[in-house]
């Protein structure tokens, strides 16, 4: 271990530390961490671009009026899209977030460059292996690769490499936490952003363990060395990888919400203990939610299903609702403290809407909460799931959580990461301000189009619904809305990639000065700090919004029970 860590001081402000001073935040930046944040973020954006190109091809195929791809390429591209968007883009960006969260806020250096290189090399090699195997037509098994469908061994080996590489990066994160605490580079508890990243890292460990448990015997089976694993067992363990990897996203996304809220408005958590408690609920209970993928599977019993998708999982839902309240509440309190106290929502109009990071995070909170959260809890109910399983409603749900929620939040963070870590100011700033709105609007159309088409019974993962003759004009209308939304969202995604690459190549360097500000909430003249210290109603606008959310939740939930009763009348 000594050879891995050398004799570099742990604290970034110690003499001889390999760090630089950030001219914008005043923090010390670990140079090793900076290098791997850059590598991981650039790789993430490349996989996002690949997944986005696949997305438009798929949407234009499911949009029956266009029906672009031939059948074999549809399933090939669907496999490619799922893995690039749900695994590679997200995992690479999360590794960047982990390296940031364990070093810069803790004033600590990264534990080991060698381990970081090993992790990155494994992740990149694995991801490239998977993508190439899919594109040459040797892995048309969809992202879930349910047995007895069988892909080329390189496909499974690639996924194993990505999983082990990510686990190695997570180890580097934990080792950095250890040396930072041992060498007292910070005082007290870790900052909330780091705690959120810690929650993400713990969930990632569980996720990647499941990945290893399921993929290693599947790989050896594909090589002909061992018998075929039981398909039911495969499904259960695979979802310990497939769904839990999205819970890593949720933690990282919420950490980004808090971070960007603070950067754009100066918001501080309303109550640190409550926010950390919500992350604790994620750590303990969110991984159980994987069970809702097996709600119609025959081999696991009702007790297992109901315990894992209801009683225990609702504690994680509670955590999401806590974050969904405290993030806007902390922003409202910061704005009221700055003097924007008029009425219930006077502070909303004064928010820094021209800041693309902030607008991306607000849209992320709204889409994740109102669409993704409400549909997720409803679809995860065992009885209701029976009318929605394997329909486009499921796809509509997770495009609201993973794309409208996580991807949009990560895009928002990039508007700070690139100027602060790559030290170049964004080019085409007007287009950057528009990009989150375009992407958020597009993905909202995608999600709603899918959800309504799914409500009419349109199946997911289906190349062509016409031969059944069961779907009328309404279904085609909603698939059309999905298609138009996808065109808008992918245009915004391409714009995002264009802005990132353009900035890295042509952006003005900001070394030696603060980054060009996107716009932050300003204090009104004459308003003193701490004005609302004893005002318990300083978050009344958020309370009103929460009431609207809960009412929407109740209406949607009970409407689904009514829909179930219509399908399956009780006499």
């Amino acid at each position, binding site marked *: 271990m000594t050879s891995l860590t050398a004799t570099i001081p742990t604290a970034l402000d110690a003499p001889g530390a390999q760090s630089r001073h950030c001219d914008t935040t005043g923090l010390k930046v670990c140079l090793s961490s900076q290098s791997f944040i850059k590598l991981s973020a650039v790789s993430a954006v490349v996989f996002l671009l690949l997944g986005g190109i696949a997305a438009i091809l798929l949407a234009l195929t499911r949009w029956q009026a266009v029906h672009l791809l031939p059948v074999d390429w549809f399933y090939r591209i669907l496999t490619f899209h799922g893995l690039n968007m749900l695994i590679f883009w997200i995992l690479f960006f999360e590794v960047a977030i982990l390296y940031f969260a364990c070093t810069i806020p803790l004033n600590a250096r990264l534990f080991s460059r060698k381990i970081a290189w090993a992790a990155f090399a494994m992740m990149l090699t694995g991801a490239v292996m998977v993508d190439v195997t899919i594109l040459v037509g040797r892995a048309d098994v969809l992202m879930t690769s349910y047995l007895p469908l069988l892909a080329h061994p390189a496909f499974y080996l690639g996924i194993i490499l990505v999983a082990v590489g990510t686990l190695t990066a997570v180890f580097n994160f934990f080792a950095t936490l250890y040396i930072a605490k041992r060498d007292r580079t910070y005082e007290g508890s870790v900052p909330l952003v780091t705690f959120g990243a810690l929650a993400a890292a*713990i969930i990632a460990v569980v996720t990647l363990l499941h990945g290893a448990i399921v993929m290693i015997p599947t790989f050896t089976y594909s090589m002909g060395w061992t018998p075929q694993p039981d398909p039911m067992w495969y499904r259960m363990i695979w979802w310990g990888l497939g769904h839990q990897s999205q819970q890593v996203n949720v933690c990282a996304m919420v950490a980004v919400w808090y971070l960007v809220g603070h950067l754009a408005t100066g918001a501080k958590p309303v109550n640190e203990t409550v926010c950390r408690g919500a992350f604790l609920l994620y750590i303990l209970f969110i*991984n159980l939610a994987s069970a809702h993928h097996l709600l119609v599977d025959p081999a696991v019993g009702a007790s297992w299903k109901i315990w894992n998708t209801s009683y225990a999982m609702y504690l994680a839902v509670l955590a999401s609702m806590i974050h969904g309240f405290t993030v806007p509440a902390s922003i409202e309190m910061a704005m009221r403290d700055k003097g924007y106290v008029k009425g219930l929502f006077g502070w909303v109009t004064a928010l820094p809407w021209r800041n693309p990071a902030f607008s991306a995070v607000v849209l992320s909170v709204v889409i994740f909460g109102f669409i993704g959260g409400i549909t997720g809890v409803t679809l995860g109910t065992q009885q209701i799931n029976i009318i929605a399983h394997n329909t486009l409603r499921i796809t509509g749900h997770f495009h609201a959580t993973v794309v409208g929620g996580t991807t949009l939040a990560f895009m928002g963070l990039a508007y700070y990461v690139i100027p602060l870590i790559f030290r170049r100011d964004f080019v085409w700033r007007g287009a950057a301000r528009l990009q989150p709105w375009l992407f958020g609007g597009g993905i909202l159309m995608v999600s709603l189009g899918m959800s309504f088409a799914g409500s009419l019974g349109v199946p997911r993962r289906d190349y062509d619904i016409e031969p059944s003759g069961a779907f009328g004009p309404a279904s085609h209308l909603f698939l059309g809305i999905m298609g138009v939304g996808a065109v808008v969202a992918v245009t915004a995604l391409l714009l995002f990639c264009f802005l990132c690459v353009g900035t890295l190549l042509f952006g003005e360097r900001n070394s030696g000065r603060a980054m060009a500000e996107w716009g932050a909430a300003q204090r009104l003249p004459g308003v003193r700090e701490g004005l609302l210290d004893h005002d318990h109603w300083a978050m009344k606008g958020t309370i009103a919004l929460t009431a609207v959310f809960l009412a929407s939740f109740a209406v949607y939930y009970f409407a689904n029970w009514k829909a179930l009763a219509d399908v399956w009348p009780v006499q």
Partner: protein
Amino acid sequence: MTPPTQEPFLKRLMDNPWLLLVLGVAIPMLSYTAWGWVEILLVKPATLP
């Protein structure tokens, strides 16, 4: 001389990443994975008609 006050249990738990790691791995591994695995193992193979 007043005795040193001990921090609340929840704060000590949340300041201990290693305990959080153990709990975060153990709970889903028992509730989801081990329990589900046992249920699948207990399914009798179907016989041909």
